Structure formats: C-alpha cells, structure tokens
C-alpha cells in the first residue's frame, strides 16, 4: 500500500484489508489519489488546516470516492448534495466544504440546485466527475453523453445534444471554473489545490473513464489506459469552454466576489446589534 495515501485513509482501508469498491481501472480511484496528494502538498506548503474539512457527496459511483478517507463525510440524497453543503457552510462559515458529485447527480437530478448555488456564490468547492453516463445503474444516457453515442437506453444513438457544465457555470457567474482530464495528473492536482484555497464557489470538472460502460459502449475501447489516451486525443487546451467534437480543457474563470455566507452572517450580526430581535 502506498504510504502517502495510507496516512489519509480510515482503519480497514489503511491496514490494506479492504479495497475500494470501484471497478478495475476506474478513474474515481485516481481522482481520490489526486485529492489526497493535493491536501498533502497544501499541508506541507502553508499549513492548510484539514480538521475543518467536510466532504458531502451525492449518490452514484462518484459518491463512493471519499468513503475511504478519514474526514467528515455526509451522504446526501440523490442530487441534493449542494443543498446539504450549503447548510454546512452557513452553520460553520470557517469550514472547508468539498462536494464530490457525478454528472448525472449534479447536472440532471440536481440541476436546479447547481444553478441556484452558483447564483448565490456559496463558498463550497465542487469536484464534478464526468464519465459521460450513469455508471452505477448500468450505463443509461446522461446529460453529458455525446450525440450519436450508443448506450443501454439509446441503442440507435443518442438523439440529444450534450450539456456543457463549465459553460453553464461561467454564464451564471461562478468564480472558479476549470476542466481537466484524468491523464493530466499535475494539472489536476494543481487545480484541486487552487480550488481548496479559493474563497467563493468553485467548480472543477474532471473527465474520468468508466471502462465497463463508457469504454465498451460510448467509446468502443475497453482498456482503461487506451481510454486515457483517447481523452488526450479529443481535448484541446483553451480559455473558452466548449463540449462538442473537441472538448476544451483548462482554467476558464478565476475571480472573487462576495459570498453568500459572508452576506448572511453580516445580516445576522447587524440584526443582533440592533437589539430588535426576539431570541
């Protein structure tokens, strides 16, 4: 077992007595490795406090990413991870809230929550793991499935154009938006570090491989390393998000504006000082 990762895992996982529950070659395990490495680098560089780290997940394969970690983890309802994370952030404004969500969880079922969380600029950090379909339930079509792709529910090709999460977030005024792919390890780790140090809402979309369903049906390659090579072939680095034949990757937006919890707590403090409240 890798000793760097071992320091951050829970009892049975740290002893090497239990595996992660992902399929062989799944990108979720790689993303968890990047997340742990980013936290480790931040702790060594400038004393990042990970005792106030809260991780909220939805349902799906990506909801199982933080399960081996020894941090505080909340499993929310399907698609409602952002609402629970908003509650945690409002009650404890000095905490660091990270949300792991999949593309079906965040964009299809929790799409309205995503829109309004970005609009309010709640200071939570979202890592969106995009594998282009619903992996856990058996490979059904998702909002991010490319057009004319074959899945279990679209055997003659997908008739719907895909949804670009980064473009949606940029247009709604998110303060940090980036998209990277799993094979680009250094960029992913750097982006997660920037995301954790960011103040407002941050969205990192990470294109990940699902060799069992996405590999066999959508792309047509079932070897995990070949899917990673395919991702490098279809992506272009740019500063404008687009999600078509060529998927653009890179950091799209990075600026700051007042966050929801700051405005909310200033209102609460103002009301308490005025004395016209009933306890």
């Amino acid at each position, binding site marked *: 077992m*890798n000793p760097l*990762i071992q320091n951050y895992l829970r009892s049975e996982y740290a002893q090497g007595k239990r595996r*992660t529950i992902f399929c062989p070659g799944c*990108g979720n395990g*790689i993303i968890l490795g990047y997340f742990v490495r980013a936290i480790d680098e931040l702790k060594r560089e400038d004393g990042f406090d990970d005792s106030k780290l809260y991780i909220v997940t939805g349902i799906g394969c990506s909801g199982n990413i933080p399960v081996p970690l020894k941090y505080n983890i909340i499993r929310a309802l399907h698609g409602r991870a952002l609402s629970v994370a908003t509650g945690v952030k409002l009650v404890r404004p000095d905490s660091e809230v990270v949300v792991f969500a999949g593309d079906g969880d965040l964009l299809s079922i929790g799409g309205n929550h995503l829109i309004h969380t970005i609009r309010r600029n709640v200071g939570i950090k979202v890592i969106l793991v995009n594998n282009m379909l619903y992996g856990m339930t058996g490979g059904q079509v998702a909002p991010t499935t490319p057009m004319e792709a074959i899945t279990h529910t679209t055997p003659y090709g997908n008739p719907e154009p895909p949804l670009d999460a980064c473009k949606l977030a940029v247009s709604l005024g998110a303060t940090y938006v980036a998209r990277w792919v799993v094979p680009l*390890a250094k960029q992913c780790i750097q982006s997660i570090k920037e995301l954790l140090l960011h103040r407002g809402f941050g969205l990192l979309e990470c294109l990940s491989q699902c060799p069992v369903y996405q590999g066999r049906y959508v792309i047509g390659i079932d070897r995990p390393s070949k899917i990673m090579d395919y991702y490098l072939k279809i992506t272009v680095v740019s500063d404008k998000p687009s999600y078509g034949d060529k998927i653009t990757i890179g950091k799209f937006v990075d600026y700051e504006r007042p966050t929801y919890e700051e405005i909310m707590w200033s209102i609460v403090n103002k009301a308490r000082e005025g004395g016209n409240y009933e306890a």
Partner: protein
Amino acid sequence: MRRRSIVVKIDVDKYLCKGCYICVDKCPTKVFEVSSVIGDYGIFLPEARHVDRCVDCGICELYCPDYAITIIRSGGNEA
C-alpha cells in the same frame, strides 16, 4: 557516463491490485510486465521486471486507482 537509478524496487500489493494494467501501458520505459502470478482479485499481477530501466517519474504511483504500487527508493548515498 550512465546515471545510476535510485529506485531499488517497485512493490505491487497482491491483495489491492485489481488488474487494470494502467501501469503496464502507461510506463514510459516499459518497466512493468504481466506476470503469471495470480493475485487475490483473480487477475494476473503486473510485475516490475526491469527496474534498471526506471527513470523515477512516479507515473505508476500517480495513476494506480487502488494505491497498490509503492516505489521503494534508496537513500541516495550511492552513485
């Protein structure tokens, strides 16, 4: 003069490895090979047969989804 490698061994955990062979395909100097030893998951374990070729890039450790690979380095006193 050839640079001496400080990687002494690359350990693959017999229980944790699930046999995705990302390490075998992604290693830039082809250090790994699929051996005939069967691991606990029921797959042929990858084995670091050519450690003398290793350039210590850490790709296998970074990409391993099950954290089964550990690069064991010497203290750096030799060479």
